[in-house]
C-alpha cells in the first residue's frame, strides 16, 4: 500500500513538471469545486451554529417624525438580525439603509420581525435589565420584568433581592409539571386509550366471527369500566397539574410601556441577554444546542427542538441499510459469481447502473402505488380487517419509506459489491476450491470477507443518498409532525407502520411551508447542519468499521 502511494507520489511529481499547462487548468477546476463546497459548508456551519449563540438586545428610540412606531410608542427592542440597504431606493435614487430587528412578543405585535430605516432611529441603547424569555407559544418575549406573583399571594418585585432565583425556580417547577402532564397524557392515558382501542377491535373481530359474541361483549364491558375509571383518575391528575401551571404569574412591561402578565406555566426559560458574560454565552449556546437536539418541536416546528425528526431520519436510514445491504449483496453475488457472464448479464448490469439515475420521485410514486396501496392494502385486509376503513399498513409509514429508499439505493450497493467481489483474486478462489471447498463455501469464507470493505463502501454511498433524500419520502410516510416516535416502550417496540418525521422534510417544511419564513430561517440552517452532521457521523461510523476490517486483513485493495 505504502509502496503504491509512493509510486503515485513520484508520478505526481513528474506530472507537476513546470510548463505543463494542463496541470494548472485541471487543478483550477478542482480548486473551484472544493472552494464552492467549502463555501457552502461554511455558510451552513456559521448560520447553523449562530442560531444558538445569544445576541445582545438593542432598544431603539424612533425620531419624532417616524411613522414606524407601534401604536403611540416610539420604542422597539430586539435582536439585531440584519443591516442592509432597502431593496427600493428613494426618489432621488439614494440607497436607504435599514435594520431588521427580531422584536419577539408576537402575541402583542402580531409580527416577530421589524424593519426600521436608519433615518427613523434617533437613539440606540442596550438596557442591562431587559429580559429574553422563551415561551411555549408565540415565540420569545423581550421585555422588562416587573414582578412575580407566586401562589398564595406572595409577590416579589423585579430588582428586589432574590427575584431572579425565585423566577428561575418557578420556571423549573413549571417545566417539571409540564413533563409530568405530558407523561400522563401521552404515556399513561395513551396506554389506556390503546387498551380500549384493542378491546373495541376485539369486539369488532368477534362480531365478524358471529360466535361467542355475548361472552366477549360482557368481558369487554367489564374491562371497559375499569379502564374508564383509570382514565378518569389520570385525567383528574393531569387537570390538577394544569391548574397549578396557572397559579404563578409573571408580570412584565414591554418597551412600549404596556404592562402585561403571563402565567409561569407558559414560560420555558429566560436570561438577561445584555448581562451575559462570554462564559455565560458559551454555556447558553450549548444548552440551547442540546435543547435543539433533544426537545420536541413547538409552534409549527419553528421553535423547540428537532428530536423526532433526528430520530426518524436515523431509524429510517438504519432500517434502509438493514434492507438494502443483504438484498444488494445477494444480487451482486449472483451477478458476479453465479451468472454466466454474457450478453444478458451485461444488459442487466447496464440496467442496474441506469436505475441509479432514475429520478427519486419516481421511486416515491412506485413506493406509494406498490408498497403502500397494493402491499399495505393487502396486509390490512388480511391481518387488520377489524380496523378498516382506517388503514394500518395501507398508508405511508416507516416500513414503506425504508423499503422505497432501499429500492432506490440498491443499484449503488450492487455496483460497489460487484466491484468488491471482482477484486478478490482468482488465485484466492482457486486456493479455496483446491482445498475442497464448495463454490458457496468459497464465496462465504473467501470472497465475501475479502470484498467486505468494498461492500461497506457501497453501504456508505447508499446511506449518504438515502439519508439526504426527501422527495420520495413525502409520498410514503414522512409527516410534518408525528404524534409518536416509531420506537417506544410499548410492544412490539418498533412500529413500522407509523408515520415519522425526517430532517430533510423538516427543512423543506420549515423553509417553504411555514407561515413565518423569517422566524423559521434559523431553524432551517440549524436543521440542515444537523442533517449534514448526521450523514457524516453515520458515514464515519461505517468508515471506521471498514478501516478495522481492512487492518484485520491488511489487504489494501480498496
Amino acid at each position, binding site marked *: 500500500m505504502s509502496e503504491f502511494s509512493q509510486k503515485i507520489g513520484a508520478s505526481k511529481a513528474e506530472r507537476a513538471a513546470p510548463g505543463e499547462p494542463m496541470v494548472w487548468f485541471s487543478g483550477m477546476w478542482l480548486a473551484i469545486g472544493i472552494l464552492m463546497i467549502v463555501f457552502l459548508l461554511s455558510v451552513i456551519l456559521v448560520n447553523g451554529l449562530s442560531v444558538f449563540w445569544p445576541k445582545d438586545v438593542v432598544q431603539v428610540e424612533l425620531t419624532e417624525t417616524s411613522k414606524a412606531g407601534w401604536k403611540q410608542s416610539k420604542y422597539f427592542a430586539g435582536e439585531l438580525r440584519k443591516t442592509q440597504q432597502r431593496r427600493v431606493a428613494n426618489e432621488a435614487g439614494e440607497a436607504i439603509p435599514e435594520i431588521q430587528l427580531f422584536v419577539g412578543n408576537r402575541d402583542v405585535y402580531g409580527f416577530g420581525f421589524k424593519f426600521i430605516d436608519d433615518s427613523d432611529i434617533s437613539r440606540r441603547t442596550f438596557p442591562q435589565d431587559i429580559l429574553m424569555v422563551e415561551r411555549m407559544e408565540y415565540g420569545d418575549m423581550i421585555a422588562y420584568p416587573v414582578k412575580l406573583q407566586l401562589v398564595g399571594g406572595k409577590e416579589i418585585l423585579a430588582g428586589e433581592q432574590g427575584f431572579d432565583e425565585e423566577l428561575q425556580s418557578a420556571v423549573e417547577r413549571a417545566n417539571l409539571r409540564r413533563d409530568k402532564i405530558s407523561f400522563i397524557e401521552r404515556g399513561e392515558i395513551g396506554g389506556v386509550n390503546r387498551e380500549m382501542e384493542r378491546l373495541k377491535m376485539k369486539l369488532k373481530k368477534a362480531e365478524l366471527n358471529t360466535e361467542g359474541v355475548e361472552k366477549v361483549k360482557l368481558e369487554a364491558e367489564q374491562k371497559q369500566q375499569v379502564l374508564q375509571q383509570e382514565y378518569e383518575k389520570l385525567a383528574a391528575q393531569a387537570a390538577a397539574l394544569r391548574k397549578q401551571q396557572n397559579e404563578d404569574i409573571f408580570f412584565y412591561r414591554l418597551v412600549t410601556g404596556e404592562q402585561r402578565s403571563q402565567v409561569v406555566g407558559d414560560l420555558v426559560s429566560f436570561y438577561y441577554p445584555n448581562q451575559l458574560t462570554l462564559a455565560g454565552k458559551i454555556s447558553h449556546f450549548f444548552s440551547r444546542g442540546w435543547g435543539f437536539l433533544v426537545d420536541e418541536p413547538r409552534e409549527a416546528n419553528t421553535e423547540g427542538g428537532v428530536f423526532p425528526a433526528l430520530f426518524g431520519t436515523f431509524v429510517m436510514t438504519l432500517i434502509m441499510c438493514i434492507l438494502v445491504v443483504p438484498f444488494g449483496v445477494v444480487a451482486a453475488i449472483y451477478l458476479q459469481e453465479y451468472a454466466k457472464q454474457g450478453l444478458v448479464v451485461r444488459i442487466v448490469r447496464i440496467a442496474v447502473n441506469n436505475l441509479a439515475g432514475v429520478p427519486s420521485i419516481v421511486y416515491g410514486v412506485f413506493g406509494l402505488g406498490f408498497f403502500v396501496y397494493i402491499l399495505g392494502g393487502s396486509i390490512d385486509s388480511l391481518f387488520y380487517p377489524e380496523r378498516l376503513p382506517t388503514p394500518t399498513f395501507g398508508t405511508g409509514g416507516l416500513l414503506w419509506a425504508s423499503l422505497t429508499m432501499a429500492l432506490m439505493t440498491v443499484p449503488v450497493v450492487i455496483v460497489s459489491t460487484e466491484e468488491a467481489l471482482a477484486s478478490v483474486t482468482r488465485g484466492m478462489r482457486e*486456493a479455496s*476450491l483446491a*482445498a*475442497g*471447498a464448495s463454490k458457496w463455501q468459497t464465496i462465504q469464507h473467501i470472497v465475501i470477507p475479502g470484498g467486505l470493505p468494498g461492500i461497506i463502501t457501497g453501504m456508505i454511498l447508499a446511506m449518504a443518498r438515502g439519508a439526504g433524500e426527501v422527495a420520495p419520502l413525502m409520498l410514503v410516510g414522512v409527516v410534518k409532525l408525528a404524534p409518536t416516535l416509531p420506537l417506544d416502550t410499548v410492544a412490539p417496540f418498533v412500529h413500522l407502520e407509523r408515520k415519522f418525521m425526517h430532517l430533510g422534510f423538516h427543512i423543506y417544511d420549515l423553509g417553504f411551508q411555514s407561515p413565518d419564513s423569517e422566524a423559521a430561517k434559523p431553524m432551517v440552517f440549524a436543521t440542515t447542519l444537523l442533517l449534514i452532521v448526521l450523514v457524516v457521523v453515520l458515514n464515519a461510523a461505517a468508515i471506521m468499521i471498514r478501516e478495522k476490517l481492512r487492518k484485520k486483513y491488511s489487504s489494501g485493495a480498496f
Partner: protein
Amino acid sequence: MNSASLSPIAMHKENIQSSVQKTGQTDRPVEVVAAEEPSLAGRPDYIKVSDFSFNYVPAVRVLHNITMEIPEKQVTAFIGPSGCGKTTLLRNFNRMNDLIDGVSHEGHIYVNDQDIHDRNLEVISLRKRIGMVFQKSNPFPKTIYENVVYSLRVAGQKNKQLLNEVVERSLKSAALWEETKDRLHDSALGLSGGQMQRLCIARAIANRPEILLMDEPCSALDPIATAKIEELITELKQSFTVVIVTHNMQQATRVSDRAAYFFMGKLIEMDDTTQLFSNPSQKETEDYISGRFG
C-alpha cells in the same frame, strides 16, 4: 465417492478421517494414524493419464496426447521449458482448469482407477483428496492459523484440539513453525514472500491428502527453506503421492523418483529420475538437462 475404487490404504485412512469428523471426540492426532498405515508398495499407475489433450481456447491445443503413469507414494517431477504445459497438466489432476471458461479436453485421467471426469464423481471429493501448492503463492487474507486449517474448516471439522495439532504439525512440516508460532493469529499477509509460500505448503498438507501437487514450490525460497521443503517431500512420499513441477534440475534429481520431460505440450520422455538424467533416451531431453536448451 466410490470407495470401491480406493486402495486399501486410502480406504483405511478415509474411514478414520470420517470417524474423526463424525464423532469429533477422537483425540488421537492424525500423525499417529499416518504412522499406523502399513507401508505397502504403491501401485505404479496410481494416476494414469491416457491419451489426454487439452485446449484453453478452441483450436489452440496446449497438451497433446499425453499418456503417462504416476506411481503411488513416489515423487514424480515434471520438467521442461517455460510454457510447455506442466502447470496445465498438473491443474488437470484436480480439475482446477474446470474453472476457466472455454476449456476442453480429450482422453482420460484416472486417479486410482477412477476417471476424474466421470459425471458421477463429485469434484469436491476429488479435491479433498488432492492438495495443491500453486506456482504463485496465494494465502488467504486471514490469520496464519485459519489459513492452515482452511481445508478442515470447510470439511466441517470443529474439534479445537485437533485443529491446533494440525496447525503445529503442518507448520513444522513446512519449516514455518519456529517463525510463526507466536503470531498464529496475525494476518498471513504480513508474512514474507517465502514464508507465504511455505504457508501455502502447510495449508496443502493440513488434511493429509493422498496426492500432493506442487507447482514450483521452492521458486521463492532460500536454500535453507528449500532444503527443508525437499526434506518434507521425501518424508511425505512415505504415505503420499507427490507430483512436483520444477525448473531446478538438481532439485529434480534430489527429490524425485520419476521424472517427465515435456516440450511444447508433448510428453517427450518419462523414466526413473536417475535413468532420465544420466542416460536420456531422447535427444531433446539430453539437450534440456545439460543446459544446451532453455
